[in-house]
């Protein structure tokens, strides 16, 4: 495998030719995918472009003597985190693609200009000054010792941040539960016996009269009538009675007056 070759190539000092080839292939790919991500109209496409960037980065990590991170990037980031993104995207509506019209005036221009300025500053100010710096390389920590080295650091020098991340994860889990968990109304569940007892003890044993009984219409809006012709109060729907009902607007007898067409015609004549 060329990749394995490259990885072992990358020893202490400078980068080998193999690494350069990989970089010049994957680097532009990562960048292009990133740019594509912000231009893709469909959010799912954006997510997939991001996955592409992340995978490219994973390989670049491995080439930079960080095999462990490379795999974590693939498994955790690309595998889990991005899947979570996709899940939520599906939940909130996959087709909610952005409109291309920019509503904030000057936002894109300003964004682009600032982005350009920022990139220039980073590249010219920071990147340029680093070219002369020799790279030390990780030596034994690069390949087999990588995992142990990282583990050792986590449990010694970085013990506190490591413990703190547990607080972070607990918060995240709790937060997701609080916000995303739809609380059901707790209803007192009655057993069959209890239900019967409640019904017999209650003030009414028979079912409520349905709408339209002894009436001329079957609509919910029409109250049930008792045998003597009076309205059965239990059949009145609270919701319907609670609202003022406006008379439904009837179309005027002259249908043309709606469109105004006739007047035009008359005017034209």
């Amino acid at each position, binding site marked *: 495998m060329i990749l394995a070759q490259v990885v072992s190539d990358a020893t202490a000092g400078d980068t080998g030719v193999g690494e350069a080839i990989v970089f010049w292939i994957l680097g532009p790919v990562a960048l292009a995918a990133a740019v594509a991500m912000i231009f893709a109209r469909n959010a799912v496409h954006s997510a997939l472009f991001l996955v592409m960037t992340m995978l490219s980065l994973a390989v670049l990590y491995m080439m930079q003597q960080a095999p462990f991170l490379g795999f974590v990037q693939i498994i955790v980031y690309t595998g889990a985190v991005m899947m979570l993104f996709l899940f939520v995207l599906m939940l909130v509506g996959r087709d909610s693609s952005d409109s291309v019209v920019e509503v*904030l005036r000057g936002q894109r221009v300003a*964004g682009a200009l*600032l982005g350009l*300025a920022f990139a220039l500053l980073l590249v010219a100010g920071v990147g340029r000054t680093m070219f002369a710096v020799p790279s030390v390389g990780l030596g034994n920590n690069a390949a087999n010792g990588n995992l142990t080295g990282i583990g050792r650091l986590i449990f010694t020098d970085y013990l506190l941040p490591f413990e703190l991340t547990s607080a972070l994860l607990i918060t995240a889990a709790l937060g997701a539960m609080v916000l995303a968990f739809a609380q059901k109304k707790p209803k007192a569940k009655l057993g069959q016996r209890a239900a019967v007892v409640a019904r017999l003890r209650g003030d009414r044993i028979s079912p409520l009269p349905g709408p339209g009984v002894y009436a001329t219409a079957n609509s919910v809006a029409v109250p049930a009538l008792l045998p003597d012709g009076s309205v059965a109060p239990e059949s009145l729907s609270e919701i319907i009675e609670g609202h003022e009902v406006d008379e439904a607007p009837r179309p005027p007898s002259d249908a043309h007056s709606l469109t105004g067409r006739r007047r035009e015609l008359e005017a034209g004549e």
Partner: protein
Amino acid sequence: MTALAPLLFVLPALGALANLLAGRRANAWGHWVGVAAVVASFVVGLLLFFETLGLEPEQRSREVSLFSWISSGTLDVDFGIRLDPLSLTFVLLITGVGSLIHLYSVGYMSHDPGRRRFFAQLNLFVAAMLILVLGNNFVMLYLGWEGVGLASYLLIGFYQDRPSAATAAKKAFLMNRVGDVGLAIAIFLLWLELGTLQYTEVFARIGEVPSGTVLAITILLLLGACGKSGQFPLQSWLPDAMEGPTPVSALIHAATMVTAGVYLIARTNPIYNLTETGRLVVALVGVVTLLIGAIIGCAYDDIKKVLAYSTVSQIGYMILAVGLGPAGYALGIFHLLTHGFFKAGLFLGAGSVMHAMNDDVNMRHFGGLGRRMPITFVTFGLGYLALIGFPFLSGYFSKDAIIEAAFAQEGWQGWVFGGAATLAAGLTAFYMTRLMIMTFFGKERWKELKAPDGQDYHPHESPTTMTVPMIVLAVGSVFGGFTLSAIGLYEWLAPSLGELQELEGGALPHALVPWLVVLFSALGVLVAYLLVGRRPTPVERPERVSLPVQAARRDLYADAVNETLIERPGIWLTRALVFVDNRGVDGLVNGVAAGLGGSSGRLRRLQTGFVRSYALSMLGGSVFVVAALLAVRFA
């Protein structure tokens, strides 16, 4: 005995607290607690005063350190009291006049549902003012400074339901804040240069400070003084402050708080002694203000506004005096004391008139009140005579001394300062006489009028709680000047302010000055009598009438001459100044406020509510920060 000193401000503070906390239960007796607190404070002040009198002059400045207030890093500020002749003089003025005005307020506010709140705030003011004058360092001074500003703000806005009161309160607070910024910067500069803010240390080491900084400090202190004392260019809040109840105008906006600026400059005299330019600026501000105040005072028909501009003008005299340096500090304080008496008396008199006239303030509606309110008339009249410098009343001693010192300056300053002060003395006589005639003499114009609330006027003399303070203050106005100069006020103040320098030479011989001043004053009275006293005063303010009609209306040729030569230029000048005052100064203040508000209204549109705009501004900020840091490093 010095252990009693904290009681001076603790007692009024407790009074304020009691009135605030006791709630409605205290409605019946809260005001007496307020009065008692200030009177007790006055008694303590007297005790301390007599104790200090018994000491040798060199030992009369004492420091009482209560506790260490702020200590952070190298900054160390005591909560301490400085008992010296200057602070004790102020203590007696504040608590003495304060007691009288508290007593007066019992009667004046007797029908007001907010009386308890009023006394709480009045007590709060007294406490803050005492902290201001008693503190032994600049931070205490600042504390009192802000405290009196706050109390004054609350009291100006006391009649909460009047929009004009709320506006006036806000204006006063904001203009004071402008001055406060100056004071704060001056304090910080002092600390930066000397690392201490205790008066004793600052004054001992002020010589180490470079002269440019000293000048800056003096100007900034002056800015603070201008804000608090209603001096040019920050004077316009003071007349508006008359929206407050009249006892407040008497106590705060005539006798005590507005003199804080004078106190500040007198207190920091070792700093001002170092810079002649700084003193010159002070004196110029004083001269400009005293002229402006006197001229505008001629224009108003509102009795309290006239008195307010008179206050502006008189404080201008004091500022001029302290601007004259060692030759004037004590004179400024002297005038401050006498002015405290007669101006408080005049305000109380005005309040008594308003009380009788259903809170009307328009002098054109008054007239002939002298017969209805004899006590008010007499006390007010004595205050009036004192103010215009009637020989051997208190204003005569103090004002003449200032004008003499002004004439004694070298070169052009003597002529300008002295001339302006003399001219203003004439103007003072003019507008005060006009006020007297319109209020107490002439036809009883109110008989044909209805009060703003629709009832007839029934002028009557005020109750005893109001007349007694007026009588006491009138007595003070008559004998105060003579007594103070007889018992040696200047020598008493010398430990705080240095010996009073007697200047020789200058623009005019000293003997001539009193005559000149009396002459100008008499002229002012005469002109006022000719213009106002000999003609019926129109009830409505006369609108501009065309020249021929005006000429036709005049039956006396002399009047026409008067008019063309004196009145018309005077009116034009007055109108122009009122215009500048209302439009120019207010306009500037309002313009700044409106500008801030407008830019705020526009800028808040940037907060569009769109997350993406926010992100844009954050990215913009980041680009700025990164670019700036890299540029700073590699430029």
